[in-house]
């Protein structure tokens, strides 16, 4: 059981890295401490069901706090979007191929050609998306500015 607790703590510490920065920075150590005490107490009082209950609650918190942060980050949005575009293009190409190629053997012969177009176009789409998100992030990241710089920015048209 101690092994399970150690594993749980390691897992929680990893998950914590996906939480909002203010929480990790100001309360990270305390959150780990609170989680470990809660887990230990749940194990003492209810055994495995207790540990599972703590993890179930933690899953809810993860969805509420970490997922919104991650889905607003270009680091996740860009690959997800690229993958989605790639998957859609592959599906369209496969659909067209299946309609025109009656046998599976012929389809397999034509598969490399079918995949080629999306495969080559995806990096270009990814590049365009990365450029767009990066420029958006740079524009929006006003928190890094000093008070004086922010005041100057607000005077300008920007």
């Amino acid at each position, binding site marked *: 059981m101690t092994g399970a607790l150690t594993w749980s703590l390691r897992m929680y510490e990893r998950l914590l890295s996906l*939480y909002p920065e*203010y*929480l990790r920075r*100001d*309360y990270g*150590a*305390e*959150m780990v*401490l*609170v*989680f470990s*005490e*809660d887990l230990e*107490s749940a194990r003492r009082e209810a055994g495995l069901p207790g540990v599972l209950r703590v993890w179930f*609650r*933690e899953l*809810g*918190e993860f969805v*509420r*706090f970490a997922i919104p942060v991650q889905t607003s980050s270009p680091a996740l949005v860009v690959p997800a979007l690229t993958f989605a575009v790639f998957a859609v293009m592959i599906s369209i190409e496969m659909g067209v191929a299946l309609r025109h190629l009656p046998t599976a053997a012929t389809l397999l012969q034509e598969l490399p050609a079918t995949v080629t177009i999306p495969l080559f176009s995806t990096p270009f789409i990814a590049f365009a998306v990365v450029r767009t998100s990066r420029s958006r992030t740079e524009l929006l990241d006003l928190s890094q500015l000093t008070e004086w710089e922010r005041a100057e920015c607000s005077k300008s048209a920007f």
Partner: protein
Amino acid sequence: MIYHQMIMSRSDPPLPPATFFILFALTSGEKHGYAIMRESRKLSDDSFQLGPATLYTTIQRLLDSKWIEEAPGPEDGDPRRRYYRLTKQGRWALDHEVRRMEALVKKSIALRLLSVGAKS
């Protein structure tokens, strides 16, 4: 949104459960995060479970609103822990919320939605 500014108006919304139970837990004295978590669970008869992220997000909001403040913990305590205690504003806000609930219960009894002493 600063809670203590919100609550000054007559049409103030009820406190969120996490805020209410953290303030409630601190009425019996200063506590660290885990003690607040345990106390709020006890006060709600295990019906309200606070997780670490909800706990510390709410604590941060309450500190910003000056409803709670950090307190010096015991000298031999764990240095990783921070202790918190209610401020006058926090106590006032909790009192206000309890009165609001009391008024609701009285109205429910008057409308026979709730009978005193009856088992649910």
